[in-house]
Structures are given as C-alpha cells and as structure tokens.
C-alpha cells in the first residue's frame, strides 16, 4: 500500500490529446520524497539538454508535495517545474491555496504535461474522469475570472482551478499561473500558455492512506495549536504589518536604483493603513493552515484579488507611487496573470530607458508623463506583446539586448537573466552572496530563511535565543553567539548558513509545507513550526518511511544536486554565478571568490560548480555522473573536488 502519496501521476499529451494514468515507482519517493524532488528526476530523465523551452518536448509538471492531504498543517504547496525560456534553465515555482490537496484527493500526485495543443483547451479532472475541453470561450479572460467561469460551466463550486491570464496566453515570460489566493511565478505561466493550456480544473473525493494516522493526527493537532498560538514565529508577518519601514527604506525604488531615505513616517503609516483597511475585504489562509497571510482586496473598479507579503509594495516602489497605486494596478496585473516581483522591474526599466532617450516617442506613442499612468500603459503593451512590449515581454535581460542602443547598461539587477528583488545594499554579505550566486530557483526568497539576518546585540538576549533554538543544528548556535553586529561571519560559517538555508527549502519543496511555517520563517524569531529535527517524524508517520534528520538532510542534498546537474547539463557554469556588480556598494571580489570556492568544495562540486562523480555517486545519482562523463562534463578521473582543474575539462 502507498502511504501519503497516491502512487499515480497523470500524463497529458496535449499534441495528441492523450491522457494516461501512470503508476509511479515507490523507490523514487524514498530517494526524493515528492514535489519538486520527484519532478526534477522526471525532467532529468525525459528532457534532454538540447530541448528548447518552447519545444513540445518541454514538460510542465505540477507536483503536489508529499504531505499534502495528510493532516499536516500548512502542507498545501504545489510545485510547478519546467524549463524557462528566460533563463534557459530549470524553472521552479510554488503555490499554496487549495489546488494540490484537491488533486491528491482526485488520485494523482502529479500532472505531467507535454506537447502542445492545437487550440486553447483546459483540463478537467474529476477523480477518474479526465478530459481536455475546449477553452476558446475563455481566451483573453482574466486568470481568476477564468476560475469562476469554469466553476459555473461545470456547475461545481468545489472544483479548484489554476489558470493563466492574457500574459500567459501571449507567452509573456513573466506570466504567472493563478489560483485562488496564490500564484505560481518565475516563468511557468509562459510555458502553460505556449502549450495552449488555459486552465486546469480539479475535483477529487478519494481517500489518502496514512501509515500511522491516529498518531499523526494527534501530532498535527498539537502543531495546529502551536502555529496558531505563535504568531511571532509562524505565517507571513509582513502581510499583517502596516509598518512598511523595512521595505520602503531598505529596498530600492524605481529600476532598483534609488533608495528613498526617510520616506517612512507615522503620518504615512496611518495614511497607508487607512488605504489597506479600506480595500481589504478579508484575511484568508490556505488549506489546513490556521494562519491568514493573504488579503482579499477589492479596489474600486477592479475584480477581487489577493496579495501576500511584499507584492503590495512592488509596483508602488517601482513607480515611486503611494500604496493605493499598487492596489489599483494589481487589480489589473493579477487578472492578466503577471509576476508581482519581475513585472514592476520590467516596467521601471522601460521608464528609465525612455527617460534616457533610448526608448522614444516613436517606440511609445502617446506615452503619458505620470509614472503611474506609464505603468498602466506599459502593462497593456507588455501583455499584448505590442510594439516595444514584445521585447519587454521577454524580461529585462533579453529586452535590453533586443532594444540595444546601450539599454544593456540598464539591466543591472538580474542574475542568470532573471530579475531579482530590488535590494541594493551597502556592505557585501557573504552568506547572501552565496545564496544569490548559486541559487537554482532564481529568487532569494526561495533560498534564504533559516539563519537570522542580523545578530542580536544584547548578549543575554542572544543567549536566550540560542537556548530556545530547537530548529538549529549545534554549529549555528556557536556561530550565532560569536556574531557581532557589522561583522562578517567566517567563510566556514557563510558556507554553512547558505547550505542550511537552502536545505530547508529543498525539504519544503518536496513535502509541500509552506515556507512561512518552515524554511523562510526561522530567520525571523528562530522558532519556525517545522524544522529539520521535527519534520522526520511527520514524514515517517505519514509515509511509513524510516527517516531521521541526517537522512532528510541527505535527501534534500540529493534533490539539490540533481537540480544543479540538470542546469549544468544545460550549460550553467561558475561564470553565471554572479550577483550584479552594484548589488553591494562595498565588495571584496577576492574574498567573494574564495567564499564561492569554499562553498563549491563544501558541496562536493568542482571549481566550475559541477558536482563531482564522487558526490553524485554518494547520493545515489550514479546515472547523473555517468551522463556527465559521457558528455565530457566530467572526465571520470577526478579526485577530490578541490584538486579539480575544471577549466581544462570544460574546454574539451
């Protein structure tokens, strides 16, 4: 019997309209758990490196986390994975809400989509009944509106829907997939649009087997209480805060260039709070979670949509506007299905190009003078790929190169061709340097989160913090005690911090627990609901697998290395692992490279950032090392990672 998982994937071939229910190999669950982990394995096996993102052979995979539909609170994340046309690399996104649990109850762990439909369709899954249905009447419809229309048409309010808006349909690179109060960003909506799949609607009523249900239920009940009782350690604090000082004073405005000091004051806080209170209709949560991190927003003249975390500021700050502007434009961009992190940067970039005379009135006929109005203008161009919008729709990196005339200079905030959160800071921060440089998931929020961002100045307080720090492996307690304000952690500590932070995300991304209860949350307050020490028990009770902390860490490392290998095979190398030159004002290139060397070595990678044969084999990824040797990515005679002379290897 399969526990926690259904043991079946749904394979959809859109080209042929073929639908298959395929039993999965339980061994893969032991090796990768589920979610992104098992998705990476499928991508490795089935999508060779020469595959173009827009080829019908590219896969779009929706993976439920392993613990979805078990009683584990806050386990509701679905991972979406594919190859991104923007980066040419692995693309990873997660969304919460209600879709994943419903899919599992329908009897599937994953939906694997290949091919391209000749015309716009949507997929309807109702337990064993699965069909592709015409979606021509939904063309151009808003992403959330599509969900509502499909429910009406199916006469079933209980189906859960994911859908793309106009942006996805027009293959805009920053297109999202929207679902209820959540969205999947970072370049997955574009592939759904390319495959002409407007939406997926799912309804499921089957049971999921749990290995030791009564024990798990009790453990989860206690956890539910803990999550509810500890608002300072769980959930999205920023969602509820009206004090935005942290974001508006520390993050860069406009095209990630300008810091607006002293913007924040009591008066503005009151003004902004009043705006939020007026447009917010409700706080909502995700499936089986006692938190309420999402605001339902009804802005006059716009459809209802949801915000979480910092997206309520990204457009305002990019356009140098006030909060009401953000709520207003989100009403448009959420329906179009646009990433709230990348899109504002693309728009601000275009505004800067216009002001620099690189884009002219010829490119932007009738371009308004007010930045806010300019943003609305540009959004329309972007989602329709009209005029210069066609270049902008490919993201800042590619747009800069398509537009030319020096526009490349204005692309100063992307890593691996992907727009980053606009954080331009003073002093180099080595753990962050590593996370930015080596992350496969393109956004710092998908990597950071376990180790606190700043030390606690008061020693006694710090001691107290460390004594209660159940989530942390011992070595971090020592480093945290030694950490003085404004002092750099040692190289060894930096490497370990990056490793721990990312490991927790690789765990969450496989089992589906929300990062706000786990991997992203420990950095604020140090007591996340889930951590590397208590998760093995949840997983064991749910799945029946024998699992301890070391084994869980190893699985996370296996997934991390497999995804890295997938990217390496697609050409990723050390030279790509570089935060923008102006990311910090004060930098130390030599020490940065030393730190990167140390990280690679710690990870068991060679100087190019390629996992060595030894590392791969130890993780049971022999098939990867064999492939690397065959392709000449590794020679097969490597010794210890530090002795690598990869530069030569590469040239061959």
């Amino acid at each position: 019997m399969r526990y926690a998982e259904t043991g079946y994937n749904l394979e959809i071939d859109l080209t042929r309209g073929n639908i298959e229910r395929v039993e999965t190999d339980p061994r893969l669950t032991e090796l990768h758990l589920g979610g992104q982990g098992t998705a990476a394995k499928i991508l490795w096996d089935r999508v060779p490196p020469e595959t173009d993102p827009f080829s019908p052979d590219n896969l779009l995979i929706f993976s439920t986390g392993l613990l979805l539909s078990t009683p584990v609170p806050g386990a509701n994340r679905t991972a979406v994975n594919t190859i991104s046309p923007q980066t040419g690399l692995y693309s990873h996104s997660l969304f919460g809400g209600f879709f994943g649990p419903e899919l599992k109850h329908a009897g599937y762990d994953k939906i694997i989509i290949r091919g391209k439909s000749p015309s716009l369709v949507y997929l309807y899954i109702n337990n064993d009944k699965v069909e592709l249905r015409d979606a021509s009447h939904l063309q151009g419809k808003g992403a959330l509106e599509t969900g509502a229309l499909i429910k009406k048409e199916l006469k079933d309010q209980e189906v859960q829907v994911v859908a793309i808006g106009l942006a996805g349909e027009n293959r805009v690179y920053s297109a999202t997939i929207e679902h209820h109060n959540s969205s999947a960003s970072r370049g997955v909506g574009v592939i759904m649009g390319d495959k002409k799949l407007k939406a997926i609607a799912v309804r499921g009523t089957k049971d999921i087997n749990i290995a030791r249900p009564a024990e798990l239920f009790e453990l989860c009940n206690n956890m539910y209480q803990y999550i509810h009782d500890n608002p300072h350690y769980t959930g999205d604090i920023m969602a509820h805060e009206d004090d935005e000082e942290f974001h508006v004073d520390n993050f860069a405005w406009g095209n990630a260039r300008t810091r607006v000091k002293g913007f924040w004051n009591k008066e503005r806080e009151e003004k902004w709070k009043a705006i939020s209170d007026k447009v917010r209709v409700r706080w909502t949560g995700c499936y089986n979670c006692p938190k309420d991190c999402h605001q339902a927003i009804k802005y006059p003249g716009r459809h209802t949509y949801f915000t979480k975390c910092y997206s309520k500021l990204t457009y305002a700050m990019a356009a140098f506007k006030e909060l009401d502007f953000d709520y207003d434009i989100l009403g448009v961009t959420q329906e179009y299905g646009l990433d709230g992190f990348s899109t504002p940067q693309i728009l601000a970039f275009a505004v800067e190009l216009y002001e620099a005379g690189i884009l002219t009135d010829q490119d932007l006929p009738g371009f308004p003078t007010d930045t806010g109005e300019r943003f609305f203008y540009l959004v329309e161009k972007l989602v329709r790929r009209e005029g210069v919008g066609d270049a902008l729709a490919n993201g800042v990196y590619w747009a800069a190169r398509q537009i030319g005339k020096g526009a490349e200079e204005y692309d100063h905030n992307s890593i691996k061709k992907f727009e980053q959160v606009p954080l331009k800071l003073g002093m180099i921060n080595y753990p962050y340097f590593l996370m930015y440089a080596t992350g496969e998931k393109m956004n710092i929020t998908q990597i950071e989160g376990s180790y606190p961002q700043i030390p606690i100045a008061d020693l006694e307080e710090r001691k107290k913090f460390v004594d209660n720090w159940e989530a942390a492996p011992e070595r971090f307690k020592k480093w945290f005690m030694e950490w003085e304000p404004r002092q750099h952690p040692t190289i060894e500590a930096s490497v370990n911090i990056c490793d721990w932070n990312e490991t927790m995300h690789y765990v969450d991304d496989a089992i589906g627990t929300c990062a706000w209860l786990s991997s992203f949350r420990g950095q604020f307050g140090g007591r996340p609901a889930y951590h590397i020490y208590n998760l093995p028990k949840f997983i064991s009770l749910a799945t029946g697998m024998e699992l301890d902390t070391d084994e869980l860490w190893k699985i996370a490392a296996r997934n991390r290395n497999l995804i890295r290998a997938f990217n390496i095979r697609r050409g990723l190398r050390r030279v790509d692992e570089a935060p923008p030159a102006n990311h910090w004002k004060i930098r130390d290139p030599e020490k940065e490279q030393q730190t990167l060397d140390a990280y690679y070595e710690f990870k068991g990678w060679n100087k190019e950032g390629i996992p060595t044969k030894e590392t791969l084999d130890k993780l049971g990824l022999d098939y990867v090392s064999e492939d690397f040797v065959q392709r000449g990515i590794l020679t097969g005679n490597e010794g210890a990672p530090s002795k690598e002379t990869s530069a030569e290897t590469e040239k061959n």
Partner: protein
Amino acid sequence: MKDQLEKKKVKRIKINLDKCVGCRACEIACSAFHATPKYSSINPARSRIRMVIDELNDEYVPIRARDYTKAECDGRHVYTINEKEYSECSFCGAVCPARNLFKEPDSGLPLKCDMCVDDPPLKEPLCVQVCKVEALTYEEYEEEVKEEVKLGEMEIGLQSLVDKHGLQKLVDTVARMSQKG
C-alpha cells in the same frame, strides 16, 4: 398527543462569517473524526460540515449537513447582505439532488452532522475545536420544550404525502403500485 413540558439540552454552533479565513480545517477535522477507524483518514468530501466558498464574491459560509431531501426546492431566495449576494443554498444544509454536498463519495448515501457524539463526550464538536479564529463557537443551553412523539423517517415522509394528497388517495396509490409489482 399530550403536551408536556420537559427540559432539553440544546447544542448550538454559532457561526461568525466575518471571522472565517477559509482554511477548511473544520472539514478536515470532521472527516477525520467520522472516519473508521477514527482519525484514519482526512477527506473533505466526507465531512459533515462544508465550506461554501466563492472567493471572488468574498463568500465563506460553513454549513452543516442536515436532512436528506429527494427533490430540490422549486425556487430559491437570493439574499443581499452587506452588498454581497448569497444564494439561499449557501445557508442550506439539506442533502439535496441539486448539488454534490454531503454525499458519501463512494455510496452516494447522505451524510449528517451528529455534533460529534462520542464516548466520553467531546467538550466541543471537533470543527469548533480546530477553528482557531473562532468563526465557529459552541454553546449548550437548556430549553423547555413540549414533549412530542417523535416520528420516524418513514412516518415523516408518509405524513407529508397524506397531507398533500389525502389518506384515501395514498392508500389507493400504494395498492395500485403493489399490484404492478
């Protein structure tokens, strides 16, 4: 029927629609409690409390499974509360052919809320216990009610037919049906 006053314990779940965050923990807990063996599985489709959610209309209504009804109503009210429209169905706990709610997914048999009867009794029904935001709260109080002879399910059904068509017509119909086999 002799009317006699007697004290009866009334169990009441109070619902505050404004507080609901739509987490569906109530459904999850209910389905676990009623699984056999207890807590062996969670499956909202088997829950006896269901959330009617229309997030774009900001509609979040928990409803509790009540009696089975063979036919859907012939007309429905639409209520406007605080500028939001609600169909009467959003408040109705009937197990009705017009919708999927409250039907055992395998057998299609109707589900009904039993206020989590247990031995020893729970302090509160489980859905209330897990609703941390207190959209669901529980109270018990005593009420003096007239003692009535309770009718069984079939009697209720027959009585309603008698009311509608008269006893003689009903008897004739039953006789005719039984002849047809």
